[in-house]
């Protein structure tokens, strides 16, 4: 089928679902949603289990693992539920996401870093803290 007939086809029948990204609609499939759902359930259940059952005695190690699972689950949601890929909206979606992620990291990490140092270098607040000064 030539491109011209194809276009004609679209005009007549409206938007065909098998036509990828033709009208800004994502290509949805049962398999894709189920894969995302099952992965999310696993990636949610494991951190909850780790924290609630206190599987690892060291809290810091548990915290790192929990954050790791959250990052992976974030990516799973992006791909399977938000249908994000490098081609959606001609790449502008991905570009906006990368820009937002960059701002987010600067703002989030920056705030925590600055405020942590400010807390350590501030005058102690209570009388007890004052007495316990090194």
């Amino acid at each position, binding site marked *: 089928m030539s491109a011209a007939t194809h276009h004609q086809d679209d005009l007549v029948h*409206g*938007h065909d*679902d098998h036509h990828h990204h*033709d*009208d*800004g*609609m*994502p290509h*949805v*499939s*049962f398999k894709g*949603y*189920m894969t*995302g*759902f099952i992965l*999310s*359930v696993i990636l*949610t259940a494991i*951190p*909850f289990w780790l*924290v*609630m059952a206190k599987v690892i005695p060291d*809290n810091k190690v*548990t*915290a790192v693992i*929990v*954050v790791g*699972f*959250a990052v992976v*689950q*974030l990516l799973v*949601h*992006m791909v399977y*539920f*938000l249908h994000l890929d490098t081609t959606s*909206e001609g790449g*502008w*979606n991905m570009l*906006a*996401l990368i*820009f*937002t992620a960059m*701002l*987010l990291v600067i*703002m*989030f990490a920056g*705030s*925590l870093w600055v*405020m942590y140092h400010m807390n350590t270098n501030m005058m102690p607040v209570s009388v007890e803290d004052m007495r316990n000064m090194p």
Partner: protein
Amino acid sequence: MSNTATVNNASAQEFYLTEEHHVENGTMLGFWLYLMSDCLIFACLFAMYGVVGANYAAGPSPKDLFDLDLVALNTAMLLLSSITYGFAMIEMARKNKGATLIWLAITGCFGLAFLSIELYEFHHLIHEGAGPQRSAFLSAFFTLVGTHGLHVTFGCIWLVTLMIQLHKNGFTPVMRRRINCLSLFWHFLDVVWIGVFTFVYLLGVLR
């Protein structure tokens, strides 16, 4: 003189897109940009929680307050609502109006269940004297989780509106676009909730 005209002609031709784009593309990109700006709002609230989240003012800490069973149940509600919205999207692709409406209704029910559990939790906390005015940690907690809850509330209102419109109009391109926008919004809220339950609840209890 004639030379410039030819150059102008040639360059003018290059500016035309050979393939016409649909108007819908603009809306979907615009909505995505809105979601990204919403993402920044949540990032600010998360940063605020990160900064003051350990200032208990000699009040209760996350370990004393949070009931992880309840949070797990809440998370399950939101995850289930995500997959049922997915099923609605699949039925929409099949142009099956009745089934789409049913799946949207089920999604709404899960959304309401999530909100009820969250309101119960808030009520319980305030009843225990751990309201937003108790400490900086609790102020930040109520702001962050409350903002997410408000988003879910508006998502539910939007969902009901779309269900009525869909019932009346059927699958017009405009309706499909609207349902697709809400899909993004709904799944985006689920993404934010991943951050909330990890950063606020799980790490709070570990602290």
